[in-house]
């Protein structure tokens, strides 16, 4: 009953000094909106990065000999070695390829298109499922025979053949200056995220068996493989690095091992560090905002000394006055928090729309922000409110 009355009185007090109330809230508004924006940007980035890793394969890893000064030919790999590594880890390595990719020009009639040919293993569709709109993906038979088969991106197929159903068609290809003929066995579809354009350029990818790019006796730079999900990741890592270092006669620290998982956890660490920094900024700005509120509440208490005296004469108890002023500072601060939250969400929405990123806004964050700023209001309201509550009625009534 009394708290409704307190709420009304607090609203009135805030309304009477609109400008002053707003300026007082500013610290909280800025702090909370900054926190909401940065937390939401962090969450959104995390989403984008996770998507990105899903694209290139979460279980993907790459191993090669680091760029050391005494570079030797034996630092490079051959297909025989690739088979050896594969046979050494029949359970752990699901798929393996020589990480081969070539720029190529595909020509049909008068149309020519630039694509990136990616050499894939025979079971690629197991480790990186693609949406096939026509035909099939490269398979083990294609790989074993080193067939000149290709799987095109839907847009590429439409450009060249005027249709997505291009299986069975043949095209001329020029791969690093050497002409050849490719047969289309399938067409896949993939929605482009803005990040794809950013990371990979706009060249469409076409898949070929890696054996059509790398022949026995050719040297290549790295092994690219997909790891089984249910293995001890760290044990496997040290085993495979050990194998390669023996194979290449290099020390373990001369072997580079990059995995999507490690990169992802690194990105996550960066995000976490950012969250921590944001937390610190939030704490500081809320502290500053809280001090602002305390200051203005002290002014308000002094201004209203006489009112406090009247209220006490009429029967207000210490607690009544205390709660009245605490309500006021909490409301002031929570209103600041709410405005800050809305402002922050606004920033993030606009930013997300501009960058074409799916924005993640956690309703929990909003709730916590408002509750937390109300708490700041209560905390920094205690000193002014208790000053008001402790006022002697006679002194307060006599106050000019």
């Amino acid at each position, binding site marked *: *009953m*009394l708290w*409704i*009355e307190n709420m009304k009185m607090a609203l*009135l007090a805030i309304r*009477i000094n609109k400008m002053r109330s707003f300026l007082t809230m500013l610290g909280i508004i800025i702090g909370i909106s900054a926190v909401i924006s940065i937390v939401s940007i962090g969450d959104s980035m995390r989403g984008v990065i996770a998507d990105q890793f899903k694209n290139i394969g979460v279980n993907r890893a790459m191993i090669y000999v680091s760029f050391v000064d005494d570079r030797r030919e034996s630092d490079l790999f051959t297909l025989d070695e690739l088979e050896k590594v594969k046979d050494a880890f029949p359970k752990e390595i699901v798929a393996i390829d020589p990480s081969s990719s070539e720029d190529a020009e595909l020509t049909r009639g008068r149309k020519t298109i630039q694509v990136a040919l990616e050499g894939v293993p025979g079971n690629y569709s197991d480790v990186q499922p693609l949406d096939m709109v026509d035909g099939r993906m490269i398979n083990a038979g294609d790989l074993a025979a080193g067939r000149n088969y290709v799987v095109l991106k839907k847009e590429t197929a439409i450009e060249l053949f005027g249709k997505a159903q291009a299986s069975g068609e043949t095209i001329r290809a020029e791969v690093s200056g050497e002409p050849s003929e490719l047969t289309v066995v399938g067409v896949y579809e993939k929605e482009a995220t803005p990040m794809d354009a950013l990371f990979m350029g706009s060249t469409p990818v076409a898949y070929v068996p890696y054996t059509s790019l790398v022949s026995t006796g050719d040297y290549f730079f790295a092994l690219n493989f997909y790891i089984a999900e249910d293995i001890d990741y760290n044990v496997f890592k040290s085993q495979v690095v050990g194998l390669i270092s023996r194979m290449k006669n290099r020390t373990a620290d001369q072997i580079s091992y990059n995995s999507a998982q490690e990169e992802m956890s690194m990105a996550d660490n960066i995000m976490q560090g950012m969250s921590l920094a944001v937390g610190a900024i939030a704490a500081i700005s809320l502290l500053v905002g809280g001090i602002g509120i305390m200051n203005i509440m002290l002014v308000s208490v002094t201004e209203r000394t*006489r*009112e406090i*005296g*009247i*209220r*006490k*004469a*009429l*029967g*207000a*108890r*210490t*607690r*009544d006055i205390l709660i009245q002023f605490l309500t006021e500072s909490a409301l002031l601060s929570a209103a600041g928090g709410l405005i800050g939250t809305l402002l922050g969400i606004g920033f993030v929405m606009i930013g997300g729309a501009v960058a074409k990123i799916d924005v993640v806004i956690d309703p929990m964050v909003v709730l916590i922000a408002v509750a937390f700023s109300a708490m700041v209001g209560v905390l920094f309201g205690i000193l002014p409110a208790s000053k008001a509550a402790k006022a002697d*009625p*006679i002194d307060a*009534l006599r106050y000019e």
Partner: protein
Amino acid sequence: MNDWTDTEGRNGQEDRQALIRIENMGKTYDTGAVQVAALKEVDLIIRQGEFVAVMGQSGSGKSTLMNILGCLDRPTSGKYYLEGIDIGSRSSDELSLIRNKKIGFVFQSFNLIPRTSALKNVELPMTYARIPFHERHRRAMELLQKVDLGDRMEHMPNELSGGQKQRVAVARALANDPPILLADEPTGNLDSTSSGEIMRLFTALNAEGVTVIVVTHENEIAAFARRVIRFRDGKMISDETGGGHYAVD
């Protein structure tokens, strides 16, 4: 605290009606440098239903007495019993409760809460008495009608004349139906017409049984009271009832 009829060891027929009993009471203000004895050796009994005027020169201790009677302040020596309760030994929150239930204040400077409607001002003592909204709203309207301000309920204090403000203050003082009305120079800031209105209100309330104590400098105001108490330099120098009066000393 809960039992207002408790008379803490007082006895006799006379005491039962003694609403206010002051025994050898003194009040000394300690301003650090000097000690100001505002009240000295005051003995006073006021019974239920009396209409008392307190007079005396400026600085003679009238307001000091009223503050103590109103439980806003405590005596520094002697005793003050209100309805038999020793006020000197009560906590400030207990005094708040006593003021809320037992005492209505009317001040010279009105002391309405600014930017708060006449109605809300009248409701305030009932709010602190935890009276439900509808009940206090109804009663506040009733009281404002009683002081002839039925058409000014939603007015803010700065939209009211001095006389109207003081009538709002009277309505507010009556909110919790207190047995005592304390008025320290209630007509000090009013013209003679408004003063007359306020004093007639007091007379009517007194007729309903409210004990009224008024501080005043004016004999015309004091004439409304049946009993006149005079102070000089913190001492009670006379106490007259009706026509016949007698000196204390």
